[in-house]
């Protein structure tokens, strides 16, 4: 961190968002750069999901600025986010259980081939690309022609993540990717998160599980009651301290003081 010239891939500042009488986000700032994992933590109702949906374009912001590679942009819908290169993997994964891995990876964007008057799907090139992508990400699946319903939770998560990076997305938002996974499967998914980072993606990870967060995150952004508490370098941050900020046991003002030098860097 801390190089003066570094421009984050995605940077939000002073973001406000309210739903009727509920102020879901108040003056929130957030940024993620290429090749890093930023964890977004907070208790229930802290605004994590709202922030993710703001970035994904589901909820347009009321006020504040969003910069993409240093340039101010507006995200007014999911297609805007997708066009910028932001992919979101929601908790429900949005996979079709009855279709195989290849079909799910390419759903809605099938590679086509002309066979006389009709356009047919080019299964060979899709399968090759699926195999290449999964191998690159070291996802373990016996066959890309296996139906999703036959895969484990970790494998399903991996397929959903692989789909998000198949189309050259620069920022990947992962909403609770390890919830409901076993120990081995969690490790599988966290390894995948690391590989996305190593490939130069900016990864935003929402998680309730601080052990996972400390395991993979480079920086940790804490939200509490819709307000920005602070961003901490994961290697030097203290577990108890983060919990304190999340629950409010440590006042936000102190946190702001702690992170002030870095936040302006």
């Amino acid at each position, binding site marked *: 961190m801390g190089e003066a010239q570094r421009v984050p891939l995605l940077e939000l500042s002073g973001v406000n968002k309210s739903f009727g009488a509920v102020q879901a986000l108040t003056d929130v700032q957030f940024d993620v750069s290429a090749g890093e994992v930023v964890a977004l933590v907070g208790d229930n109702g802290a605004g994590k999901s709202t922030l993710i949906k703001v970035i994904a374009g589901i909820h347009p912001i009321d006020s504040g600025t969003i910069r993409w590679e240093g340039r101010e942009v507006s995200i007014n819908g999911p297609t805007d986010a997708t066009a910028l290169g932001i992919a979101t993997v929601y908790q*429900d*994964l*949005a*996979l*079709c*259980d*009855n*279709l195989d891995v290849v*079909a799910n990876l390419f*759903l*809605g*964007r*099938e590679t*086509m081939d002309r*066979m006389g008057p*009709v*356009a*047919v*799907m080019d299964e*060979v*090139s899709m*399968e*090759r690309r699926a*195999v*290449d992508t*999964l*191998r690159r990400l*070291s*996802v*373990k*699946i*016996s*066959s*890309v022609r296996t139906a999703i319903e*036959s895969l*484990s939770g970790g494998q399903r998560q991996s397929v959903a993540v692989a789909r998000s990076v198949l189309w050259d997305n620069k920022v990947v938002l992962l909403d609770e990717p390890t919830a409901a996974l076993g120990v081995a499967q969690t490790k599988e998914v966290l390894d995948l998160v690391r590989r996305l980072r190593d490939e130069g993606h900016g990864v935003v990870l929402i998680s309730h599980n601080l052990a996972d967060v400390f395991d993979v995150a480079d920086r940790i952004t804490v939200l509490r009651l819709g307000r920005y508490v602070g961003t901490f370098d994961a290697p030097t941050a203290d577990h108890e301290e983060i919990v304190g900020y999340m629950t409010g046991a440590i006042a936000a003002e102190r946190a702001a003081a702690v992170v002030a030098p870095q936040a302006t860097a």
Partner: protein
Amino acid sequence: MTSTLEHDPRILGEEPGFRGALNGYRRRLRSGDLGQLPVVLGLMAIWAIFAIASQGHFISPGNLVNLSLQMAAIGTIAVGVVFVLLLGEIDLTVGVVSGLAAAVMAVANTKAGLPGPVAVGLGLGVGVLIGLIHGFWITRFKIPSFVVTLAGLIGWQGALLFVLGDTGTINMRDDFVVGLAGTFFTGVWAWGIAAIFVLYVALTGALGRRRRLSGGLAAEPVMVVSIRVVVVAALTAGAVLVLSGDRGLPLSLVFLIGLVVVMDYVVSRTRFGRMIYAVGGNAEAALRSGIRVDRVRVAVFVLASLFAAWGGMLAASRLLAVNQSSGSGVELLNAIAAAVIGGASLFGGRGTIWAALVGILVIQSISNGMDLLAFPSPVKLMVTGAVLLAAVTIDALARRGRAATGR
């Protein structure tokens, strides 16, 4: 570099070669993935029982030609039902729509004096229109297809009676219309059609295999493709040989198999087909992938009504008449039963178009066999119901086995 993925040692993948394919098949069977095996075994049992009980009458050329003719109409309707089931929906109107389209065709032909092809085209148009109405209502007002088509079941029955008017029964005499079910291929024609079908199976198998290999992917062993082609060739040749012993290969059976082949291609190779499976599997996921779910739904209901209309006209052609009860008998239930017996799931997203053909073969064989043995109607209905129940039970048990083994 071969395109294989890193292996999780706990997962048993396909091994290469013929032996590997055989082992893989055995393993799938053991884990409850029975595929078409129960239906094929059941069909063989049904044929054996009826062949013996009827002292060979059941498998005589004359009866098998009859069986083919009986299958064609409801089999065509069942193709549309498979489409609807793939979507996870239901269409209860396919029976009455088949009757209504046939009635419109009959009235246009005999009363309005329109030429046969035009009358048939009008009947198909009625099917498309009805499908559009169903699809629009289901997607626009978010009403379950069960309810919309239940209303249709009653309403279109009324339309059928209205179209037929006071006459009640209209007899068909038009050469074109009668020819739909009354044309048979013999000699060179029959063998030529059979050859085209076998060639299609062989070519798609060989070309598909070559494309995968040239793309660096694992492909089916030559042995597996060859065995499939040989089995298909033998069955086709056997069918043509037997049917030629009587009137010949019925045009309406060629229509049915042609429809199944073309629709199977559409469903498995085109983007439209992939969309249908996606919507049937997880409509929300399909929507988020940018698929226009409602358009797919409307298109599928149009196909269901269109094939119902075509099936109804094939039936009218075979029976040489349309009357007030056309399409309101066993057509609906048999078409749905055929699709389900063939392996299409009522919950959507699972099954192939071939389900219609395999299923109608089972249903019609039972019906035909019991007719030969002069079983009374009550027994026929109960046996057909029991077979349907057995088919879905085997599928449900197999699925449970599949879930237990995690495959």
